[in-house]
């Protein structure tokens, strides 16, 4: 890709409403991003309520943790251990085998085991024991190997 081609791409990108552009070919890759944040989507937040009826502030979306994560396969309650007084399935630093149970998710009184997707090392437990967790939310961060 010549510089001239890149400039053309940049110009098209500037004129479009896209916020990011990523392009990669065999021997070349380019990333463009606009400085202006996509404000409107985040904007429709209710004004702060009066103390008399103050609802809790809307839960901030969980910060995207760095590194791969095991995510919730369904909406439900997260349990780190098989029973309230039992040892957690995994702790930070544990090395686990692919398929090993790392936590439970309860939905409709059914306990669903969540398994490690590969041999890996546990880097962080991202949910509180007993918390209601949305579908797709990150549960446990890991590092392969």
């Amino acid at each position: 890709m010549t510089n001239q081609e890149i400039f053309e791409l940049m110009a098209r990108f500037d004129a479009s409403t896209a916020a990011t552009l990523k392009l990669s070919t065999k021997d070349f890759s380019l990333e463009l991003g606009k400085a202006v944040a996509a404000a409107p989507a985040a904007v429709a937040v209710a004004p702060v309520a009066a103390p008399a009826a103050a609802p809790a502030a809307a839960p901030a979306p969980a910060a995207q943790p760095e590194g791969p994560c095991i995510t919730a396969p369904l909406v439900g309650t997260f349990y780190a251990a098989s029973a309230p007084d039992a040892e957690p399935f995994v702790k930070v630093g544990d090395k686990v085998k692919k398929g090993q149970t790392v936590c439970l998710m309860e939905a409709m009184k059914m306990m669903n085991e969540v398994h490690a997707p590969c041999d890996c090392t546990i880097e962080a437990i991202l949910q509180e024991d007993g918390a209601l967790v949305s579908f797709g939310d990150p549960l446990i961060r890991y590092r392969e190997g």
Partner: protein
Amino acid sequence: MFKRILIANRGEIAVRVFRACRELDIEPVVVYSQADVNALHVQLAERAYCIGPARSADSYLNVDAILTVAKATGCDAIHPGYGFLSENDEFADACAQAGIAFIGPSGDVIRAMGNKAAARKLMMSAGVPVVPGSDGAVETAEQAKELADSIGYPVLIKASAGGGGRGMRRVFEPDQLIPLFEEARSESVACFGSGEMYLEKLILNPRHIEFQIMADQQGNVIQLGDRDCSIQRRNQKLIEESPSKALTPELRERMGAAAVAAAKAAHYVNAGTIEFVLDPDGNFYFIEMNTRIQVEHPVTELVTGMDLVREQIRIAAGLPLSRTQEEVVQKGHAIECRINAEDPAHNFQPCPGKIDFVHLPGGYGVRVDTGLYSGYTLPPYYDSLMAKLIVFAPTRLEAIRRMRRALEELVIEGPANNTDLLHQIMHHPDFVRGNYTTGYLEANMDTLLSWSRVGEEEAKA
């Protein structure tokens, strides 16, 4: 009264129910699919939970996920909105088993009204007119002739296995009945391998008229007047109004009484709608009962001054109806237009996508129910309803003029939509006169589209 309600829906109806909860000081809990993370109902809510991926079957139809959230958050009721799980008898049963109030009728009632044949029988027993017909299969052409002679012509012969017009014949003359019946049966055998045939009266140029019902757990049933929903495209309603121009006070009275009788026969509880077809001679026939809140409920709210979603919640909580039949007065005129992300010029092809800019109409007598905001991206996975524009005025003509100006104010930059088509209909002589049937849109589509093209060219010039 309930403490916390889970709203098991999305789009404008989720926002509608959310508002009713806030106004009753009930905490709303909302759920959403991964495709709806930026939806307005999620933005508004303090408590929102993702219940699955975009596909409805995995999220908004996912009974386990919804009940899990309801229980974990301590909800004592679930509002199903319309569509999705709203007429799912098993979901209503599951709510009841979980000790959570389902804001709607019981699973038994949903089942009973969901079975067309059973519902038809129930209505007949309650003295509610149904479309005259064979109440099951007719065995021979002679039996069919006998039946057709007794109910009167024209009649419609239908193969029970039929579809797409195959095995179907309209019969206008008695002497055509037997040959056409045989023809239809042969076609059905050839196409579907079945010769089972039905027969019913063919209603020409019907209106779709429905009555809003509200019934409490104490056994009180009231009707909140009629809605004319005849402006449809392939059974999808586009414009609804109340009251209908086709009804005389006497006919309205009789149809309302039939609607109440229908609801009572079904031991109905909560909000429901009795749908009728009305022929040009003023004969009306029950077609079906919708056991949920309807998209078009706001027109009834505006003419009766009664908040139907609030009333639904009160009823589910065990409170009696807030009005008697005598206290329900239809006043003024309301019209609703459904703003859909679909392109009328290209066979109503759905047009999801990013809404770059939206400006909604406002002012006196204008109500907008929508989940849109500037910058919102309409996902491709669900229906194309973007917004409901509802106007209220003392008379029908004033309501039409108000709707015109509201449509003129509406700006949606981004996906194609049907705003212009709706605006053309508001100027069409047959609509202005109230002189239309369910065939209106098909009959006038070419005219309406050509007006739009002229308008577009003038705007460019």
